[in-house]
């Protein structure tokens, strides 16, 4: 096996190994499935309840994507404002940092009061947790613009807006795609956490109800499904990033 194929298959090999060891421990020590279900049992229950899981997963997926979409819009706009004006940067950044330090799960009860049980709190939690990295990355991309590149346009009599559109934005694209990869995984965390207390549908709700019914295999299936969805979305953005901003990754995939 050459180096390249080894690299691409490494995560799968590690996954299989982990599952084997996990299964081995469960079978060998005869661990009760109410404490810690084996991979085999989880797979069994996943198939058994596949309709239910699929319905909840779909709900979690679209709620997350709605929150994430909102996060992209708000994050890009805020990042653009902060990154293009030093005054706005100085004013907004410290407050945003303080806001980001708050645990987003703590917002869920407040959101329930405002929007009731259902998709409202879930979408907003996903949004609150994921817009920050997008905003910071856009702002950083714009604020760290090399003065030389700016001068190239300024000697031509370019306005601030020209500089932002022709140089600032294209230059912050790699930062933007990088932040999407981080933000999408956070958005799934936000949705799931919110659904655990403030929804009657979704993977978060499934986790809580499976747990209280002692269906540990089902609860673990829920976790696996969230993880898988987040991973697929991460890979998708990673692919988009590589194919749209190749100039920033020339070390790895260019001639």
């Amino acid at each position: 096996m050459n180096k390249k194929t080894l690299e691409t298959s490494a995560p799968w090999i590690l996954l299989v190994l982990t599952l084997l060891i996990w299964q081995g421990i469960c079978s060998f020590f005869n661990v009760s499935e109410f404490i810690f279900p084996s991979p085999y049992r989880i797979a069994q229950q996943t198939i058994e309840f596949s309709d239910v899981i699929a319905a909840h997963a779909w709900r979690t997926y679209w709620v997350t994507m709605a929150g994430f979409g909102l996060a992209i819009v708000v994050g890009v706009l805020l990042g653009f404002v902060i990154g293009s004006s030093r005054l706005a940067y100085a004013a907004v950044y410290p407050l945003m940092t303080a806001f980001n330090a708050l645990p987003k799960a703590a917002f869920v009860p407040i959101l329930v009061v405002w929007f009731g049980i259902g998709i409202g709190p879930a979408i907003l939690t996903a949004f609150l947790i994921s817009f920050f990295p997008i905003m910071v990355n856009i702002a950083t991309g714009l604020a760290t613009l090399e003065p030389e590149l700016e001068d190239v346009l300024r000697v031509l009599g370019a306005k601030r807006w020209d500089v932002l559109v022709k140089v600032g934005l294209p230059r912050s694209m790699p930062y933007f795609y990088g932040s999407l990869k981080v933000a999408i995984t956070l958005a799934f965390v936000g949705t799931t956490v919110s659904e655990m207390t403030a929804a009657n549908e979704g993977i978060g709700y499934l986790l809580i109800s499976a747990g209280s019914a002692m269906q540990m295999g089902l609860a673990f299936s829920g976790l696996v499904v969230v993880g898988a969805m987040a991973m697929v979305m991460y890979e998708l953005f990673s692919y988009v990033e590589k194919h749209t901003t190749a100039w920033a990754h020339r070390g790895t995939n260019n001639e």
Partner: protein
Amino acid sequence: MSTPNFVDFQNVWLAYNDELLAQNHFAVEDINLQVKQGEFIAIVGPSGCGKSTFMKLTTGLKKPSKGQIMVDGQPVTGPLKISGMAFQAPSLLPWRTTLDNVLLPLEIVEPFRSQFKQRKPEFVERARKLLHTVGLGGYEDKFPWQLSGGMQQRASICRALIHEPKMLLLDEPFGALDAFTREELWCILRDLWTEQKFNVILVTHDLRESVFLADTVYVMSKSPGRFVVKREIDLPRPRDLEVTYTPEFTSIVHDLRGHIGAIRKAGAVINQ
């Protein structure tokens, strides 16, 4: 022309901020400079003597604290639209191909800007032709990182010239290149200038470069940045690279070198 001088600096002083101004600490002092239409001037001096500051004044990126600057009969109040500029670093945008980089000024400067969409094929043709004259034919669709340093600098010069500016400002554009590439680019610049007769202000620390290319060489002193020597280069044109090996050429370079040496010594005495 409304005035005989294309560029006219009258007693120009610049301090970088109000604090330095209050302390009478100027980056450049008492600059007087008259450049004729189509003249090629070079400014040489030790590093840190305010050459780049001088460039910023000429392009309008900085406003003088005292004195007045006129370019093309107009007082300079903001960035000029009739100039093209190339820097020591090529500063090409990495997400644009060479061709798109060269087209950039046409997307910014009027009247090209408003016609960019309709006249794009014509502009592209013009950019290709210009790239061809500097030996970059066939590299139009490459990205900057796929080009060598010398090629990037050629593209950068094309970008400075694509909108047919009346004035070309070059801030040590060949400083980072090897000796052979540098001489090759001297000739390219010489040919472009001979053909189009735009004004050139070349800032450099290479005396041979200044003498080979310019009509007039100004020597600038360090802190305070002032012009201390003005030297007309009366070597016949067109100049060939061979000229750089003639005794006349060498004696001019040697003479200028003497002035720079004197400045450095004087500076050292003041510093102690």
